């Protein structure tokens, strides 16, 4: 059985907080532990920040869209902005020595650290990022699947 809820949100920091809060609720409903709820909510927060700041550039005319879908074995969250598009392959590695002391550039790295699967899609105009966390999947399973 699948359960899907979606929202259209303004490009504001309040919306980022809203998306984070809803992610935490969705993760709790899906049966994730408190630690997992925290990590999922943080991943969504980072994706929402990217949508607002880098995608939509805080343009009040632009929205971003968040969908929370609970399937039998996973929580699937999709965040879509209306920006110029993102090339995830072009992002610098925040762990590289030359980037370690930079004040930004860690958002997508944290999303990847906290979710089981992360997918990007250029939706012209805009970027869709899909975050997947499997229910009951241990960290060791995640490593094996990589």
């Amino acid at each position, binding site marked *: 059985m699948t359960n899907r809820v979606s929202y259209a949100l303004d490009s504001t920091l309040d919306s980022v907080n809203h998306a984070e809060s809803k992610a935490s609720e969705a993760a709790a409903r899906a049966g994730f532990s408190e630690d997992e709820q925290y990590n999922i909510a943080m991943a969504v927060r980072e994706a929402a*920040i990217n949508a607002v700041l880098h995608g939509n550039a805080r343009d009040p005319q632009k929205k971003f869209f968040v969908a929370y879908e609970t399937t039998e074995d996973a929580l699937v969250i999709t965040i879509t902005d209306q920006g110029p598009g993102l090339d995830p392959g072009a992002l610098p590695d*925040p762990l590289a020595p030359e980037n370690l*002391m930079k*004040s*930004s550039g860690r958002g997508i*790295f*944290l999303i990847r650290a906290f979710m089981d699967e992360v997918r990007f899609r250029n939706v012209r105009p805009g970027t869709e990022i899909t975050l997947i966390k499997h229910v009951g999947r241990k960290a060791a399973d995640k490593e094996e699947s990589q």
Partner: protein
Amino acid sequence: MTMKASNRQVSGVTVVDLSGRITLGEGSTVLRETVKDLLSKGQRKILLNLADVTYIDSSGIGELVSAFTSVRNQGGDLKLLKLTKKVHDLLQITKLYTVFDVKDDEAGAIQSFK
């Protein structure tokens, strides 16, 4: 929950007690302004007490890095005190745990500035 910061002087070290969330927006701004204000007053030994910081996002991490760099660039030192497990894990993941001097005991942390 918004972030709050209060300062106290202990043996020549400014201890900044932070509480709440260091996140994009108000939390990051409060931290930036607090450190900027201390540096403008010549206070360059800064211990950030994070015991009551419940949450840090990537923006907050960036602000900690910026604060550290600013203080070091002025010949001072900035250390972190009493990380929660979440914040500790975040600094481990981002490989910043070894960049910052992290302390668990305030008295020992104060001593380490000398």
